[in-house]
C-alpha cells in the first residue's frame, strides 16, 4: 500500500450557489482496486464520480492521476472510461461502431480497431452482435456493450455510475459477478457508484460510505459491516440492533457497557469514551444467540418472543426485553430455530457486539 495512488482527489468541494453538495472530501485509489462509492441518493457519490470524469468542475480542490494534476482537463483529455446509468449508447450506431468510437477518436488503425472490438465483445460475452443496433438488444446486453465501449480504450480507470440499477433483479445479481469477473480479467482500476449495499459488498475490495456530501467511513466490506463508526453506517449497511447503553468501565481495549440490567463487554474500537458516557451498542441480528434454557455470563439478557417471521431460508424473531428494548434475531430456518413461538421466554446472548456514539456528528473526511 506504499505504492503511489492511481487517482487522488484532495479537498474537493462542490457548491451550487449557497448549497454545498459535496465535501470537502479526499479519496485515493490504488492500482487495480475495485472501489465502491456507496450511499443514499443525494449523498454526493455521483457528483464525486462526475468530478473524477471531468463532467463537473469542483468548486474547490484538485484531482490528480498518477501524480499529474488533471483538475482542469476536459473529459476527452482524461484517461477514463465511464459507464452511464442508462448506458448512453449511440442509438444511431451499430454495436461495433459504438465500441469502436473511442478507438476511432484515438486514431487507431482500422485493422487494429476491428481486432480490439471483436476481442472486447468476446470478453463481455457478446461475440458476433457487432452489426446490431442498441434498440435491438436486451437491457443486459446494452449494459455489456456500454462496459465494452468504456474498457476497449484501455483507460487507466473505469468509472461505473449505477450500471445495474436499470436491470431486473435476477439479471442484476448475475451482472454483479460478471462485472467483477471482467474487472479482474482486465485488472482495471474501477470506481463503482451504487446505493445498493449488496452490490457494494459483493463486488468491491473497498467501500466508501457517503452521506450528506461527506465520507462516513471507508474500508473493506467486512470491516464496514463489523465495525461501523456511526449509527448511519450501522443502519445503512445491513440490519442492526441499536441499543442504548452507558459506559461503566473503560478497560484495556475493552469497554463494559450497561444495557438494561446487564453488563456487556465490547471491544473499544477507535472511539474515545469515558466512564458514564452514553453510547449505542450494536448487535447484528444474525449474531444474536437465543436459547429456551437459561444462559449465564456476560452480554446476556432475558426476554420474550414478541413476533416471529418465517421467510423460507430464514426465521426472524423479535424479542422484547424491557418496555423500550426489543432485539431482532435472524437465523437460518433449521429445526432448531423453528421451534420458537410467540410468548416463549428466551435467554439472549450477544457476545459479538460493537459500541457506537449515541449521536452522529457531521463528517467531511478522506479515504
Amino acid at each position, binding site marked *: 500500500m506504499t505504492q503511489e495512488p492511481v487517482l487522488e482527489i484532495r479537498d474537493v468541494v462542490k457548491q451550487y450557489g449557497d448549497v454545498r453538495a459535496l465535501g470537502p472530501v479526499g479519496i485515493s485509489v490504488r492500482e487495480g482496486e475495485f472501489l465502491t462509492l456507496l450511499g443514499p441518493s443525494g449523498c454526493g457519490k455521483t457528483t464525486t464520480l462526475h468530478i473524477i*470524469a471531468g463532467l463537473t468542475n469542483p468548486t474547490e480542490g484538485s484531482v490528480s492521476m498518477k501524480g499529474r494534476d488533471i483538475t482542469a482537463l476536459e*473529459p476527452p483529455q482524461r484517461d477514463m472510461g*465511464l459507464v452511464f446509468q442508462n448506458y448512453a449508447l*449511440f442509438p*444511431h450506431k451499430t454495436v461495433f461502431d459504438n465500441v469502436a*468510437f473511442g478507438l476511432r*477518436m484515438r486514431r487507431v488503425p482500422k485493422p487494429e480497431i476491428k481486432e480490439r472490438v471483436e476481442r472486447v465483445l468476446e470478453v463481455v460475452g457478446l461475440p458476433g452482435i457487432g452489426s446490431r443496433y442498441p434498440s435491438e438488444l436486451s437491457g443486459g446486453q446494452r449494459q455489456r456493450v456500454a462496459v465494452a*465501449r468504456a474498457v476497449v480504450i484501455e483507460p487507466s480507470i473505469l468509472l461505473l455510475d449505477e450500471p445495474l440499477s436499470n436491470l431486473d433483479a435476477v439479471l442484476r445479481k448475475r451482472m454483479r459477478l460478471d462485472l467483477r469477473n471482467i474487472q479482474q480479467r482486465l485488472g482495471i482500476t474501477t470506481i463503482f457508484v451504487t446505493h445498493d449495499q449488496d452490490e457494494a459488498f459483493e463486488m468491491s475490495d473497498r467501500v466508501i460510505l457517503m452521506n450528506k456530501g461527506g465520507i462516513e467511513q471507508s474500508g473493506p466490506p467486512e470491516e464496514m459491516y463489523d465495525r461501523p463508526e456511526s449509527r448511519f453506517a450501522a443502519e445503512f449497511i445491513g440490519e442492526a440492533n441499536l441499543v442504548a447503553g452507558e459506559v461503566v468501565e473503560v478497560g484495556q481495549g475493552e469497554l463494559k457497557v450497561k444495557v438494561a440490567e446487564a453488563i456487556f463487554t465490547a471491544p473499544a474500537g477507535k472511539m474515545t469514551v469515558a466512564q458514564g458516557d452514553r453510547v449505542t451498542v450494536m448487535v447484528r441480528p444474525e449474531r444474536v444467540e437465543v436459547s429456551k434454557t437459561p444462559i449465564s455470563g456476560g452480554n446476556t439478557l432475558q426476554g420474550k418472543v414478541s413476533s416471529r417471521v418465517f421467510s423460507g431460508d430464514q426465521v426472524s424473531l423479535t424479542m422484547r426485553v424491557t418496555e423500550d428494548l426489543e432485539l431482532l434475531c435472524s437465523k437460518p430456518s433449521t429445526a432448531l430455530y423453528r421451534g420458537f413461538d410467540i410468548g416463549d421466554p428466551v435467554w439472549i446472548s450477544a457476545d459479538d457486539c460493537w459500541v457506537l456514539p449515541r449521536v452522529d456528528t457531521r463528517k467531511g473526511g478522506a479515504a
Partner: protein
Amino acid sequence: MNTSGRLFSTFLFSPIGIVYLLFLLAPIGFFLSMSLFRYDAFELYVPALTTENFERVLTDGYYQEIIFRTLKIAFLTSLFSLLLGYPLAYFLARSRTQWRGILMFLVIAPLMSGIIVRTYGWIVLLGSDGAVNKTLISIGLIDQPVQILNTETAVLLALVHILMPYMVFPLFSSLASQDPDVERAAGTLGAGRIRTFLEVTLPLSRTGILMGSALVFTLSAGSVVTPALLGGKDVQMLGQQIYDLVLTTLNWPLASAVAFVLVLCQFSIIALYFRGGRHGPA
C-alpha cells in the same frame, strides 16, 4: 389489434378523415380533372380531355423558369432557415437560462402578426431609402442605395424570417429529446466538442432537420404574398402564377395544371425527405 380496437381507432380518425376528404382530397381531385380540360375564352373551360395544359407548363420557357425559381427559392429558404435555426434550437434545447421562455416566445412571435403586415414591414426596411440601405451608407459600406426590393434576395430574406418557427420547433424537439448523457459519453471516449456534434448530436437530430426542412420547403414553395409584394414582377413564383391565372386571366385549366405541378414538387420533396428519415433504426 382486435375488431373493436380497430373500430375505435377508425372512430378516432374519422373527424380529421372527413375534413381531409372534403377539404383536401376533393379539391385536389377537382383541380386534377380541371387541369385536363380545355381552356375556352368564352366558356372558361370545356370538359374535353387534353394534355395541352401540362405540355404548356412543362415546355414553355416562361413556366420552366418559374418552376426552377420556385424550387430554388424554396431550397435556399430551407437551407438558410436550417443554418440560422439550428444554433438557436440547440441553444434553446441545451441552455438552462431563465430567458428560455422569453426566447421561445420570440421565436413564435413572427407568427402572431399577419403576413401582409410583416411583408410591408420588410418593404419599409429594404426600400432604397429604408433602414438597411441607410445603415449601409452611413457606415460607409456603400455610396448608392442598393436594389434589394424586387429581388430574389428580398423574397428569400422575408421567407426565412416568416418560416423560421417551422424550422426551429422540430429541431428543438428533436434536440431536447436527446439523452444528454449520450453527448457526455462521446466526450469521455475522447471526442472533442466538434467531433461530438458531428458524430452524435447532428445525426441524432436528423428527424428534426428533415421535418423542419420539409415544412419550410413546402411552405415557401407555395408562398404567394411574399414574392408578390417583395419580388415584384421580376421574381415570379408558382403561387402567384396560379393566383393570376385563376383571378386575372381566368384560365382555370392552365392554373390547375400549374397547381398540380407545384403540389407534385412538394409531395416528391416530402417523400424524399421521409425516405431519408427512414434509413436506420435511430
